């Protein structure tokens, strides 16, 4: 990316405010081996529903009507393949056929394109269908040039969670182990769906604060069933939980490994030593305590 990407597209994300060093450290501002002029050698396109501060950094800004990302991606895939697209139906997305054709031409003409997609794409109407459409578009562009897609990850080590679950269970998230083998079905085994339907009868929350961010029915289920929280602070979720355990803060008082969003593992170098045990230690102790109870029961 640093050495080769001459077309960088951000879709449904606002890196200027949410990932402030993304431009300078990883993408448009970097000088690379085959991009010796840095910013001048790259084109940046921003696709979003509103003109965020990131638009100032973009060469091309495309404003999509809210909830129309899937339609835009699908029309774009057709334009890329040279299929006939009805201009009137494209207009409904907030963009014109000329804008889509221009973007498609840029995508096909670049030497190496990168499509970063944010939660503005993956968490709005269409959700994982939007992510799938973005990934399919990037895959199809490889018939013309080299093209990759990458999600813009928000929270610190959420990429690590994907990687760890993938290599231990073969699935990246929402894995049900109740039958003794892993099953994966987003929409059925994903957290919000489980909580809102009330399918699970206990919850252990680690490195998250769903009590502050989830929809009310999900929070109510967390409060009505026993919840366990491990966190460096007493959080909203801790207040409705049965058990809270204070743990060391990742990278500040706790050592370990975290994954960058491009799946590069990096070691932590904590500058402080704190009074609390690490998440790793507490999780291990809970697991050992459960195993002792199962042995007694068996």
């Amino acid at each position, binding site marked *: 990316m640093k050495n080769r990407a001459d077309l960088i597209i951000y879709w449904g994300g606002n890196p200027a405010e949410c*990932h*402030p*060093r*993304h431009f300078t*450290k990883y993408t448009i501002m970097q000088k690379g081996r085959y991009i010796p002029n840095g910013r001048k050698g790259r084109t940046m396109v921003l696709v979003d529903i509103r003109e965020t501060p990131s638009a100032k950094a973009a060469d091309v800004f495309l404003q999509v009507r809210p909830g129309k990302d899937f339609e835009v991606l699908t029309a774009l895939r057709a334009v890329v393949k040279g299929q006939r697209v009805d201009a009137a139906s494209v207009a409904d997305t907030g963009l014109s056929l000329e804008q889509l054709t221009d973007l498609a031409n840029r995508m096909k003409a670049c030497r190496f394109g990168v499509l970063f997609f944010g939660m503005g794409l993956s968490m709005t109407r269409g959700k994982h269908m939007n992510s799938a459409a973005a990934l399919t578009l990037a895959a199809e562009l490889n018939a013309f040039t080299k093209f990759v897609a990458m999600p813009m990850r*928000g*929270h610190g*080590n*959420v990429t*690590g*969670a994907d*990687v*760890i679950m993938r290599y*231990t*269970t073969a699935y990246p*998230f*929402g894995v049900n*182990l*109740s*039958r003794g083998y892993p099953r994966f079905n*987003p929409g059925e085994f*994903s*957290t*919000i769906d489980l909580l809102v339907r009330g399918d*699970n009868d*206990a*919850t*252990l*929350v*680690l*490195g*998250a604060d769903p009590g502050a961010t989830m929809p009310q029915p999900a929070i109510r289920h967390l409060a009505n069933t026993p919840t366990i929280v491990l966190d460096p602070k007493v959080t909203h979720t801790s207040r409705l939980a*049965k*058990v*809270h*355990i204070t743990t060391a803060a990742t*990278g*500040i008082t*706790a050592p370990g*490994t*975290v*994954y960058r*969003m491009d799946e590069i593992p*990096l*070691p*932590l*170098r*904590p*500058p*402080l030593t*704190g*009074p609390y045990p690490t998440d*790793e230690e507490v999780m*291990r102790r*809970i697991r050992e*305590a*459960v195993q*002792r*109870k*199962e042995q007694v029961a068996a």
Partner: protein
Amino acid sequence: MNLTVVKNATCTFCGCVCDDIELHADGTRITETKGACILGQSWFKNHTAEHLYPDALIDGKEATVDEAVDAAADILHAAHLPLVYGLSNTTCEAQREAVHLAEIVGGVIDSHTSL
């Protein structure tokens, strides 16, 4: 006061995971964050080595970690379908333990990715 300087420290606030930050710490708090963005600065300065929170709480009352670990194990052992959720703001080592725990209790494990 014991001033330490950590070069190439890793910031875990957002998914960029910048690993070129220079941190100065006085043993209790981080005093300087060279190279960090404004989100990283507030992340590093928002945590200290102080004992600001109780070690553990059970039903909102202070408890020891041993008691809380045992209470947590009771809950998970008794549950038919426990959910292990979150995993973003923690280490890979803890995530591995979380998968192991979910397997033993026959639960569902999920992260912020599913939101």
